[in-house]
């Protein structure tokens, strides 16, 4: 017998505690809601909008929505999946995402969630932005082409690492991630390879040096099982293979 409060997600009863979000309750019950800017270890953000669900006829972001009884959550109808796919296509054309040539391929949440929604092409005209690579840090390299502005590194560096190494600057389509250093370069920040902020990037924007293709393509996190089964990159990939500087800086 249970007095636990529940809401419905695709017809299934999902128990929740007071104050819990639809996303957290669903994940706890083993139901996957696609997401990118959300990481269950940190407070919700709500910027990517990929976790959009339909609740009693309204589209809302499940990562920020407090669960409530009598909610009827649609997480899988065509209308919802199509919107997610469009949002992912927007993210793909906004940056320069060349999956076959990206070291993160197979372990990238953007790629994995795109497969999850059945996205087969970027569809929209590419923006082809001119974005740089910052390799000034001895242990870490930054590929801005791949940044999806989820803000996870910014939040985690500020709230967990207590360093505030990053900031999101600008606005609109000119929004970009910047470093907190006089030169504006990553190498002049206090960032360390062991910082939590380094391991939370859901895409291949923040990559360790000295570790190229440690896990062969085909054996990576999402190569064998979909993200809906496997879960987070950060939880799985980094925990097992910590980024380490293993030699003199080159």
């Amino acid at each position, binding site marked *: 017998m249970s007095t636990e409060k529940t809401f419905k997600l695709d017809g299934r009863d999902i128990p929740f505690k007071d104050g819990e979000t639809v996303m957290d309750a669903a994940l706890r019950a083993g139901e996957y809601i696609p997401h990118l800017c959300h990481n269950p270890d940190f407070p*919700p953000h*709500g*910027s*990517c*909008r*990929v976790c*959009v669900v339909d609740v009693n006829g309204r*589209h809302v*972001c499940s990562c*920020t929505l*407090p669960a409530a009884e009598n909610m009827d959550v649609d997480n899988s109808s065509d209308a919802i999946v199509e*919107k997610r796919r*469009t*949002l992912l296509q*927007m*993210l793909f*054309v*906004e940056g320069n995402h060349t999956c076959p040539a990206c070291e993160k391929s197979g372990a990238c949440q953007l790629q994995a969630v795109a497969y999850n929604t059945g996205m087969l092409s970027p569809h*929209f*005209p590419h*923006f082809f932005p001119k974005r740089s690579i910052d390799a000034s840090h001895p242990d870490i390299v930054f590929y801005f082409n791949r940044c999806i*502005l989820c803000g996870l590194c910014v939040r985690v560096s500020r709230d967990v690492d207590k360093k*505030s190494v*990053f*900031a*999101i*600057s*600008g*606005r*609109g*389509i*000119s*929004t970009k991630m*910047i*470093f*907190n*250093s*006089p030169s504006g370069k990553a190498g002049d920040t206090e960032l360390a390879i062991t910082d939590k902020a380094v391991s939370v990037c859901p895409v291949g924007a923040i990559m360790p040096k000295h570790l190229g293709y440690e896990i062969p393509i085909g054996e990576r996190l999402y190569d064998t099982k979909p993200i809906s089964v496997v879960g987070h990159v950060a939880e799985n990939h980094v925990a097992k293979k910590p980024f380490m500087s293993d030699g003199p800086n080159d």
Partner: protein
Amino acid sequence: MKNIRDFVSELLSETGDAPDQLLQHLCKIQNHYSHIPEEALQLLAERLQTPPAEIVAVVYFYSFLHMHTRGDFDIRFSDNITDRMLGNIPLLNSLCKKLGVEPGVPRADGRVTVALTSCTGICDQGPALLVNGMVISRLDEERIHKMVGLIEAGIPIANWPKSFFVVEDNIQRHDKLLSHGIINGSAIDAMVVKGSDAILESLDHSGLRGRGGAGFKTATKWRICRDAPAEEHYVVCNADEGEPGTFKDRILLNGYANCVFEGMTVCAGIIGAQKGFLYLRGEYLYLREALEKILQERRDAHWLGENILGEKGFDFDIEIHMGAGAYICGEESALIESLEGKRGIPRNRPPFPVTSGYMNKPTVVNNVETFVAAARIADFGAEWFRSSGTEQSTGTKLLSVSGDCERPGIYEYPYGVTIRQVLEDCGAKDTQAVQISGAAGSTIPPQEFYRQIAFEDVPTGGSFMIFNQKRDLLEMVENFSRFFAHESCGFCTPCRVGGTLMKNLVNKVMVGHATSYDISEMENIGLVMQKTAHCGLGSTAPNPVLDTLKKFPGIYSRRLLNRSYEPAFDINAELEVSRHMTGRDDEEAHVRYEK
């Protein structure tokens, strides 16, 4: 020019080093140095204990702040569609040519920058521009010519002809709010005599709803805020009047500021706030001095400060905070972020500002016009207010009328007035469409002119832009989609990326490269923006496209190519470089389409 270290030190000793003052400091530094010098930024970072990158992030968020110098004269032409219709672009080109500058690029000698900016709220007497933050209205070739002389001679704007800077109130129709004399203290007096509960009751009975457009019941908002347990409560007046085509708050702040402050004070008395803010859009900087003077007069008269009107414990004061060119800050939670000195990114809700707003304390945010109405209701009573308007939309509404009509200006009407009536009164002829409630509003065709201005029919924050039959409505759509892409805060995917995709597609239609496929793309992107965006700006940004596609399909269809698909780029134009390099121009060096 002052030593930067001294300037920043003085600034900090005047207003303190709390992090929430960041934007205010930056505005003053920008006004003084025409940019944020690196040294000033580092000093602020040290004193406010804020990472320098976060300050840089704030600078790049607000259109009026710059890391590189704009020069002695920082000029921005207002670029609303109404300014376009009045010929702002030829005037901008003329000024640029005479000064020898490219738009947006500072002149090498550090004298001047000429650029465009979003609607400055001078639509009834445009085209308009801002020079070092001050408004010049009614631009024409003669004014441009004179400006060139003044700029080249390096004459400070304080010595420019006063006639340049005249902004008229231009009230064309008075009703309840505007026709009564300025009340000084009488609304507060009424509250002190009758008690704040009675005034809230009266406000409730009056049916007053928020005048910013959303129409939330004011008494309900104030009651929730009053009942939210917290040590501190705040009152915020949203004077970030950024919706293109709206300028009613400009008139209220110019001629009825006492009424605005009185309404805020009544609100403070009801919810138990000791501090209030007027968040004034950067474009209205020219109003600030007079507003500060009025605030001082009110302090002297004991309508502000400690023990207002002798009531023990009734302490309330108002501080003016400036915006710096960001439409999104009109959204109440983005406004609060901005008040706290940050980038104006709308917050996740719940919680709502009424329970967790400024500094996470219960906060009432209301429109300028709402506070004026509240003050009048406290003074004259609910029945007086209710006797105008409709059942669901009581009272009157200020409309900012601009565009194709003989008498643009401010028109105050009881709610329920028909669009046709407004058009007749302002002398509009051969009207093709009216854009109501700004860029995010709706486009009304003639067959709907019988409709009423009211929350239950056509709601509006006050913008009323008129387009006659000679206008190309797609130019309006193009102007608005550019506006939304520019003003997107960049936080969420659908608005940040979708807004730019939409702008590019409208442009593709405009230049005659679009097909029916592109129209369905616009509908799809628009739907995703409406349904999934983080805030009201994002979800309403596609409105001008979606609304005109429905009501004025002809403005699109007559430009479409009769093909199923057309690439996003013009392959012949791309090949031009190769043709040039190879010296070829024969037929085989061109791609031929079937017509």
